[in-house]
């Protein structure tokens, strides 16, 4: 208890009701709520009190009048004391008076409107002396008055009225004359009042008498009543009430007793009903179980346990035991059903709820979850086994029946005819697994979610979250593992052996023919994946599948590319050697077009199924490894085409028995071309392998050219169109390989052509025992020159017929060789020329030189010069003239042949 409050100051120390008073002192309360009471002059002012500090409170004074203490009460200090006093006085406020106090106007106005009569003038206290004291501020201190008139009062209506007090209080400032006038006024007033009373009675004497009569009459009547009824008139009434109560009770007694009986009967019936229910319960349970209406059983069970759970009656106990055993059976049954083949999610949830309601021990929900997980795994394993055996049988059968057709089936047509039967088991497995996952897994997951969100009304055992996650992970891992084992065994190399075995080992032979199905598998897998994504699974789980899909996409892509490569490599079997011309690039076979088609197809497939990233998949080509692989694959694919070309041109198959011997030409040099074509035709008939080797070489050359100039840019375009990264590396490599092949093929062709050509020069030169030493005057160039030119023309035509552009690559080389041979022959003669021989030689060389001038090269020119050097100089003008004559003759006679060597406009390839 703290010190009691003490008030030591008040500001102001007096005032009319409602004055704002500042109370000061000590211990006036620690907080605003500590202040529990405040009275000023005996009036409670707590309501208006405003606690400022322990030294200061502001309040409004109450209606108390006179001097009084200011008492503060606090919870901590109790009731306090005061050393100062407040004096309340009632100010008379008229319309002329300035007042510091707010005059309440509302009640005034109400009076004004409510009942007339209380005008401000009557409201004012009339001064008995009729003197207004308004505006007189000075007040005579009350203390002084008390001292002067002990026991007196200034109140006119008081018994202790002291006239001196009154005068001092009200009129101590009134001049003496005014007081006298006031006295006169008072006198008049008193006289008037006396007069007034009397006259009032006089004028109303009639009604006064009437009133008196009425009073007398009333008294009379009352006395009469008392006489009649006695002193207390309520006794009779009481008796009547009591009697009626008795009557009423009698009336209702009947009804009440009937109701009681009815109640008793009803409760008896209820008891019977209950017993019947109990005794009939075992049967009902059995029936309901049979019907599958487990909810009803559980309801009944709960009810019976409520009603009879605590019974002591032996018969009831016996029946209850019966019921219990039925329920136990039901529990067993439900549990069994739960662990049995998975039903729908809802059914399972219902089963779990039933089990929970039956207060089965353990954790049925968790059992269901783990059972579901086990079942999922079992289904997948079973699925694997089925298809594994199926494939094995298929393989074994394949081993017996013509196997080649089956293994080759990837590209051959019989795949299409009976594909239904020959869908690889692994593909079926993939489809089935994906289906399983997308059908079963959501149920499993939702069950788990329901378990953890408390939807199953089961208390979740801590740590189960982790276990559940493990189960989910295990399920998905198994799924992924099985698929990997079936589709991509190579990705499982690093997994432990035991785990690896659990995913099933597939025979490597089964991998063949799987390629075309991979996109299909991918699609199935993606469907499963999308159903998983919708489940809002943890990312760890999704990542497993995502990585599986990624790997499968990579695998699929590489398989596709490999396939394309293979089919490109197989293209050589399809070469028909049909030359097609297009305006720009000369003749080509259909191989490049085939190649382009294959590449385009592969890319289209890859694009459709693999490269496009699906939901929650990374773009395949973001990975560097994948991109490198892709580069390699594409390089391989294109190199495959190079190989095909190589094989076609230089393969042992192409060369076999297809050499043109020189002897043939010596024998029939003049019909070189004809015999050649005849031979070709003969060979064609014999072997049916298309045109002559040289022609094929030319075709290949042309194809190479075409590939370089047209096909590769087109393939690059294809990449661009499928939004694949530009394959500059592989294309450059292919270009290089092509260039090298081109050179080789060209060399082979040149060798093939120049050997016989050059070989025929010497024999033909000396045909008919011609000798440069004993020559006669030349009339014409020698036949060997013509033959040589004819041969060149035939080569020219052969090349031109396939690819005009090639002429410029082939003929200059040939010309060089011919010039070299000519030089060699001339040098060998060791200047054993007679005059005519010299003329002849000069004419021959000049003729050849002139004829092939268009295709001549500096090297060839050098050889021609060398040949001319070897021939002795023409000594006289006659000889030169002769040579000129011969040449002219040659020109005119061989005009047609010479025209062949002219530069036909536009064929010259600037490169």
């Amino acid at each position, binding site marked *: 208890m703290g010190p009691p409050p003490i008030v030591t*100051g008040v*500001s*102001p120390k007096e005032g009319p009701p409602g004055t704002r008073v500042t109370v*000061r002192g000590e211990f006036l309360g620690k907080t605003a709520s500590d202040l529990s009471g405040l009275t000023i002059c005996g009036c409670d002012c707590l309501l208006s009190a405003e606690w400022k500090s322990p030294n200061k409170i502001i309040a409004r004074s109450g209606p108390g009048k006179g001097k009084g203490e200011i008492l503060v009460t606090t919870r901590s200090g109790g009731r306090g004391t005061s050393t*100062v006093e407040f004096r309340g006085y009632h100010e008379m406020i008229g319309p002329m008076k300035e007042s510091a106090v707010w005059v309440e106007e509302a009640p005034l106005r109400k009076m004004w409107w409510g009942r007339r009569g209380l005008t401000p003038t009557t409201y004012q206290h009339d001064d008995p002396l009729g003197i207004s004291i308004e505006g007189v501020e000075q007040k005579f201190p009350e203390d002084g008055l008390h001292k002067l008139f002990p026991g007196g009062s200034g109140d006119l209506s008081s018994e202790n009225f002291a006239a001196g007090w009154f005068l001092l209080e009200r009129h101590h400032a009134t001049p003496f004359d005014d007081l006298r006038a006031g006295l006169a006024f008072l006198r008049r007033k008193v006289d008037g009042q006396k007069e007034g009373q009397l006259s009032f009675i006089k004028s109303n004497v009639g009604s006064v008498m009437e009133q008196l009569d009425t009073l007398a009459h009333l008294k009379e009547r009352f006395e009469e009543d008392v006489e009649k009824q006695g002193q207390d008139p309520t006794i009779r009434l009481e008796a009547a009430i009591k009697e009626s109560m008795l009557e009423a009770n009698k009336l209702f007694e009947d009804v009440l007793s009937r109701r009681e009986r009815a109640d008793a009967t009803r409760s008896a019936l209820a008891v019977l009903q209950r017993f019947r229910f109990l005794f009939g319960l075992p049967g009902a349970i059995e029936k309901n179980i049979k019907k599958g209406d487990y909810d009803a059983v559980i309801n009944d069970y709960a009810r019976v346990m409520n009603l009879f759970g605590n019974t002591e009656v032996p018969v009831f106990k016996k029946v209850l035991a019966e019921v219990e055993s039925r329920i136990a059976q039901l529990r067993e049954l439900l549990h069994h059903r739960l662990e049995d083949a998975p039903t729908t999610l809802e059914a399972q949830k219902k089963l779990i709820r039933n089990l929970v309601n039956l207060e089965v021990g353990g954790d049925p929900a968790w059992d269901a979850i783990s059972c579901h997980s086990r079942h999922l795994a079992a289904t997948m394993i079973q699925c694997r086994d089925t298809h594994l055996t199926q494939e094995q049988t298929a393989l074994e059968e394949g081993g017996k029946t013509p196997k080649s057709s089956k293994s080759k089936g990837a590209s051959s047509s019989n795949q299409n005819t009976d594909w239904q039967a020959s869908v690889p088991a692994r593909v079926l497995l993939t489809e089935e697994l994906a289906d399983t996952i997308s059908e079963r897994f959501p149920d499993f997951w939702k069950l788990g979610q329901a378990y953890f969100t408390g939807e199953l009304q089961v208390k979740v055992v801590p740590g189960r979250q982790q276990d559940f996650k493990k189960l989910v992970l295990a399920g998905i891992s198994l799924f992924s593992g099985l698929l990997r084992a079936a589709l991509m065994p190579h990705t499982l190399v690093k997994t432990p052996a035991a785990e690896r075995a659990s995913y099933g080992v597939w025979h490597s032979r089964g991998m063949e023919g799987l390629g075309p199905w991979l996109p299909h598998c991918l699609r199935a897998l993606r469907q499963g994946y999308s159903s998983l994504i919708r489940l809002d699974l943890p990312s760890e789980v999704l990542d497993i599948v995502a990585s599986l899909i990624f790997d499968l996409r990579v695998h699929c892509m590489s398989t596709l590319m490999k396939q394309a490569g293979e089919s490109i490599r197989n293209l050589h079997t399809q070469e028909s050697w049909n030359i097609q011309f297009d305006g720009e690039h000369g003749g080509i076979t259909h191989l490049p077009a085939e190649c382009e088609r294959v590449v385009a197809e592969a890319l289209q497939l890859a694009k459709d199924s693999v490269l496009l990233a699906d939901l929650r998949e990374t773009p395949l080509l973001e990975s560097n490894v994948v991109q490198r692989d892709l580069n390699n694959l594409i390089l391989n694919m294109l190199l495959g085409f190079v190989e095909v070309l190589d094989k076609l041109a230089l393969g042992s198959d192409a060369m076999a028995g297809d050499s043109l011997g020189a002897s043939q030409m010596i024998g029939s040099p003049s019909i070189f071309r004809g015999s050649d074509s005849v031979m070709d035709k003969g060979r064609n008939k014999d072997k049916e392998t298309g045109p002559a080797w040289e022609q094929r070489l030319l075709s290949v050359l042309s194809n190479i050219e075409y590939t370089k100039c047209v096909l590769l840019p087109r393939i690059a375009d294809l990449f661009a169109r499928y939004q694949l990264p530009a394959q500059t590396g592989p294309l450059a490599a292919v270009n290089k390989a092509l260039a090298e092949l081109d050179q080789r093929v060209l060399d082979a062709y040149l060798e093939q052509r120049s050997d016989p050509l050059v070989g025929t020069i010497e024999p033909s030169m000396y045909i008919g025992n011609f000798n440069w030493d004993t020559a006669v005057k030349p009339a014409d160039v020698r036949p060997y020159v013509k033959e040589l030119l004819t041969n060149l023309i035939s080569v020219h035509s052969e090349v031109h017929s396939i690819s005009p552009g090639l002429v410029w690559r082939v003929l200059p080389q040939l010309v060089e060789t011919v010039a070299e041979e000519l030089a060699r022959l001339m040098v060998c003669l060791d200047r054993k020329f007679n005059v005519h021989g010299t003329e002849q030689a000069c004419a021959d060389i000049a003729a050849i030189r002139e004829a092939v001038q268009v295709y001549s090269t500096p090297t060839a020119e050098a050889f021609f010069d060398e040949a001319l050097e070897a021939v002795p100089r023409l000594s006289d003008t006659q000889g030169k003239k002769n040579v000129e004559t011969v040449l002219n003759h040659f020109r005119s006679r061989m005009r047609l042949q010479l025209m062949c060597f002219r530069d036909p406009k536009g064929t010259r390839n600037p490169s």
Partner: protein
Amino acid sequence: MKKPNQQPALHKVIMVGSGGVGKSALTLQFMYDEFVEDYEPTKADSYRKRVVLDGEEVQIDILDTAGQEDYAAIRDNYFRSGEGFLCVFSITEDDSFQATQEFREQILRVKNDENIPFLLVGNKSDLGEKRKVPLSEATGRATQWGVPYVETSAKTRANVDKVFYDLMREIRSRKMEDNKPGNSRGKDKSKRKKLKCVIL
């Protein structure tokens, strides 16, 4: 605290002076060690507390009056009950100093006693730089009246206790003088009369 058997002596002090010179501020500072910044004209406030004056417990009753002229008429009543007066002016306001003359005269008239305990107080001594009433003038008037002059600051509490205690001592000694029978009082009375005659 139980009521002591004997009520301690009660000294009634009255604060007079023009409006706004700091009468209430001095009072509150003395009573509650509190300096009130905001100005709110006083009507008439009453304070009373026990203090120890020279080892003797006494009660001081302070009547804080209104300085405004509006209330001049009711001053007489208050002055009648006062035993000692603190006549306050503000040293920063010459008018308030001039008004002290009027107050002095009114008090003497009401009390009819030349030697009534009376202190001339120059308040707001902390505002020295705004001083309008020279110290010499104030002391001069005090000597003329035969009363002490003290400069105070309600804000810094300088000399606040001093003025109240000095006045109480004067009141006490006056009371002791009055209670003494014999010539001293008569002497005083004659003295008073004499002085009164001078004024008249």
